[in-house]
Structures are given as C-alpha cells and as structure tokens.
C-alpha cells in the first residue's frame, strides 16, 4: 500500500472490557437457550415415540422370566457321560447346516465383491469434487440412495420372484444394497480427497478416467478396502436371514426351526451362526489392520 505507512495495524484493539463481558454473557445465554430447546425437543420426541411404539416397561419386567424359559428350552440336554452322543443328537443335521452356512458366507462374499466394485466406479461419479458433470453427480447419488434405502429383504423377495428360489436372488439383493451403502461411504471419502495429486495428474493431459485411477484411487484405496471389509461383516449377517424368503443360505433352516418350535435346533444353528460371524469379524478385522497399517499400493 502506498499510503506512506508501513501498512501495519496496531495489535491491540482498544475495546472496553465491559463491552466484551456483555458480549460473552450474551453468547453464553444464547448457547444455554440452544441446549435447553434441544433438550425439550428430545423429551418431546421420546414421549411421542414411546406412545407410537407402545412402550410398556412394566410388561417387559413381567415377562423377564420368559427370557429365561425361552433360553431354557433352547439348551440341549448334555450329560458329561454321554457327551458324544448328546452332541451328535443336538447337531443331528450338522453337515447340512454347515453346507448352508458355507453358502451363506459365499453369498456375502460375492455380494460384497460385486457391490464394492460397482460402488468404486460410482463413487467417482457421485463425488461432488470428482464428477465429470454436475448432472452425472446428481443422478449417481440418487441411484445410490435408491439402492441402499430399499431394504435387502424387499429386493430379495423381488429377486426370488424374478430369478427363482436360491442363492442367486440373495447375492443380487445384498449386492445391490451394498452397492448403495458402499457407494455413499466411498463417495464421502472421495469428497475429502487431496486435490493436489489430482491436479498433478490432470495437468499431464490425462483423461477423466485416468485421473481417477492414478490421482484419486491410490489415496482412497485404504479407506475403500476398510469399508469394504466392514461391509462383508454386515453382509454375512444379512445373508443369514435371507433364507427366510427363499434367497438361500442358512436362513431357511433357521426359519424352519423357528416355525416348528424346534428349540434345540434353533440354538444349534444360532451357535454355528454366531461362531461363523465371530470368525469372519476377526478375519476382516485383521485384514483391515493390515490394510491401514501397510497404507497403500505397492509400486506398480
């Protein structure tokens, strides 16, 4: 600035202390008001929900013993002396159940794979900072929303109707839903991407697709893989109930056991399911640790 001074303002803004104190008190009042109104709103919401949801805590308390009896009926008769036979009796259909469980896991794996690959592509279309055109971004985001809002079970029933009973309907239903869910998560990650490498690649004359592959993917891949593995964990659970509607997996067996009140069957299957889920969770957790730890692709 050529006004003769060095262009430096004095550091102190002489403001009366009283003025400051008043401003601060006013801000605190406004803050407290905000919190108060939020609390009141919360109370209101809880009250309405309790009424709509027919919440009866007393009923729950009364029926607590039913918990016990329900679980009691599910526990099989196991005596130490006859342990081998008792276990064989409990798991009379063990091999069949194991096969169904394996199918459930397969459904989850393939569904996650297909969903994740499609979501990867769509994430670049949907991310506001990466999309090739604004209307593409909007269309992509709406598509993802549709895919993840419709419950998997609904897709499953539709697909059983169209593709017939069996695991194919399950893979497609879970895959479609995963595509929507992962697409959104991937897109959120992509929107926080560092723009500098992207500009660096773009400036070489790379096309949009090339820029996505070289500029965006390397920085996003660890997060994508992590979310993908998390989704696998969720999908195993989802696959376990799709059998309810005939879309394959152990759900069918579980449903039958519940319908026929075969309580020991329910516990047998549930135990196997929980064990499988814990195993997959541990595996995915370990893999995710490796991915975040190793942090990135090896040299191409």
């Amino acid at each position, binding site marked *: 600035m050529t006004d003769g001074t060095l262009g430096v303002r004095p550091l102190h803004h002489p403001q009366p202390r009283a003025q400051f104190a008043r401003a601060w008190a006013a801000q605190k009042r406004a803050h407290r008001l905000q919190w108060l109104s939020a609390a009141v709103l919360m109370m209101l*919401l*809880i009250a*309405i*929900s*309790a*009424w*709509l*949801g*027919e*919440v*009866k805590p007393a*009923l*729950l308390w009364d*029926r607590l013993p*039913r*918990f016990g009896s*329900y679980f009691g009926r599910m526990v099989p008769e196991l005596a130490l002396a006859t342990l081998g036979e008792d276990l064989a009796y409990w798991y009379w259909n063990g091999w069949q159940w194991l096969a169904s469980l394996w*199918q459930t896991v*397969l*459904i989850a*794996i*393939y569904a996650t794979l297909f969903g994740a690959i499609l979501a990867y592509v769509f994430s670049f279309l949907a991310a506001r900072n990466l999309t090739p055109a604004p209307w593409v971004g909007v269309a992509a985001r709406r598509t993802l*929303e*549709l895919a*993840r*809002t*419709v*419950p998997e*079970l*609904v897709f499953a*029933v*539709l*697909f059983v*109707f*169209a*593709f*017939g009973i*069996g*695991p*194919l309907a399950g*893979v497609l239903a879970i895959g479609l839903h995963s595509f929507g869910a992962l697409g959104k998560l991937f897109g959120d990650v992509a929107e926080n991407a560092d723009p500098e490498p992207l500009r660096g690649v773009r400036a070489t004359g790379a096309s949009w697709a090339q820029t996505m592959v070289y500029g965006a993917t390397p920085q996003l891949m660890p997060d994508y893989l992590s979310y993908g593995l998390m989704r696998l964990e969720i999908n195993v*659970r*989802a696959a*376990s*109930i799709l059998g*309810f509607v005939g879309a*394959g997996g152990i759900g069918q067996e*579980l449903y039958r056991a*519940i319908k026929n009140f075969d309580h020991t069957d329910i516990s047998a299957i*549930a135990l196997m*399911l*929980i064990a499988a*889920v*814990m195993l997959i*969770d541990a595996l995915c957790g370990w893999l995710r640790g490796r991915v975040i730890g190793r942090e990135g692709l090896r040299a191409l």
Partner: protein
Amino acid sequence: MSGRPLTRWRECRPELYPPRGLALWRRAAAVLLGLGLFLWGLDALEVTPGRLIDGIGQLGHVFMLMMPPAVTEHVWDYVRAIGETLAMAFLGTLVASLLSVPLALMGARNIMPFGPVRLLVRRSSDVVRGIDSLVWAIFFVSVVGLGPFAGILAIAMNDTGVLTKLYAEAIENTDREQVKGVRATGAGRMQTIGFGVLPQVMPVLLGNSLYFLESNLRSATILGVVGAGGIGFFLMDRLMISAWREVSLIVIMVLVTVVCIDALSRVLRGRLIGPVGR
C-alpha cells in the same frame, strides 16, 4: 524426444519392469487360480447366465406392473405404520447409545484394567451383534407379544452389541497425551474419563449414533414381517399377494421418509462436528 537412441534399462534394472520368464508364469498361474475359484464359487451359488437373463426379463415385467403407484384407502394405515417405524428406530438407537457408553467403557483396554470383565463385555457384545435384529425381533415378539415394542427391543439389542464394540475401539484409540494431561492436573479416575477421554470421543459417538439412526430406520422397515411393528408387515403382505402397485407406493413412502431423515441426520452431524470439534 531428443532423437538419440533410448537406453535399454531392462538388463541393468530388471526390478523396474514387469516380470518375465518363470516369474511371469507364476503370476499367470496365480491369476488363473483366482479366476477358477471365482467361477467355482459362482457355480456353487447356482449362478448361470441363463438364469440371469431370464430373471432380468422378469424384473422388467414386474416394474411395468408397479407403475403407477396406487393410492388406496390404506394410505393412512401406511402412514401410521411408518410413524411406528420411526419411533422404533429412534428409541432403539437412543437406548442402545445410552447403554453402550458404560458398556464400552467397561470393555476398553485403557479404562478397564480387569481382563476378564473386558473379555466378558466384548464377547457378549459379539454374540449379540452376530444375531440379526430380525431374529431378535422374533425372540422379543414371543416375550412381549406382537407390536412395535418388540421391534424397539430388537433394534436396541442388536445395536448395543454393535455400538459397544465401536465405542470401545474409539475409546481405546483416544490420544493418550490428552488424557495424561488431564491426569497431571490431579484429576481422579472418573474425572479423567469425563474430561480427558469423553470429550475426544464425543463427536465420534454422536456422529455414529446419527449414522445408526439412518441405518436402523432401514432395518426397522422390515421387522414388521415377523410381527414386530412398523411398515414391514404391510410391505411383505402386499408383496406376497403380488399387489405390485401398492408395493411401489409403500416403497416410495419409505424412500421419502428415509431421505428426509438422512438429510436431517446430515445437518445435525454437521452442526455437531462444528461446535464440538474445535
């Protein structure tokens, strides 16, 4: 470029080039193996191109039948059912969020020194998590009867399992330095947790809870299938009798609801991260 002949670096720096010879064969074999496994799995899942093509045709047919959505006199039933669903999701998430905080503290390595207690908490949350909320719903229906109350309990149960693990991990990942700083002022154990640990994890916890609200709304929509209240009952019923036009109406109503809640959740999360994440 400059017109002079290019140096062939392959001989002196082979590691900079794609593999040749034996290494190439090994890679090709690995790729083929992977492909084989992939196709074998598809076969195990009874996936054939024929079925896919037939099915897509059928889907197209069904979509035709779904248009336009039929606004029948049942609309008000659906609206009430969606209200129930919202209530289920909200209360379920709330209860689970509140329950998970003390449980997560008990399951976190840096808070709970007693191994067995931690183990119990983490393993039970694993078990609870492993069972889908739909199965819990069946269970709770047999305990408290049909209706949305069973749904709330089912969602709360499943979510407590998930959130306990998530929160425990978040707590374990808190910055030790900040906690030590609070400790250094002479704070007791509870105070350390309250001022050192919780402020760090609060944004994560709240953000996660809101995200779970969105997710729970989606799961709550199907719990009605097994009688645990909500729109799921109508949805499944109409599907089973192939009343396609009503199905599309219900799906659209659910979509609108979910989109609204998602937007709300996003706004809230933005405002929370703002003031809290200083």
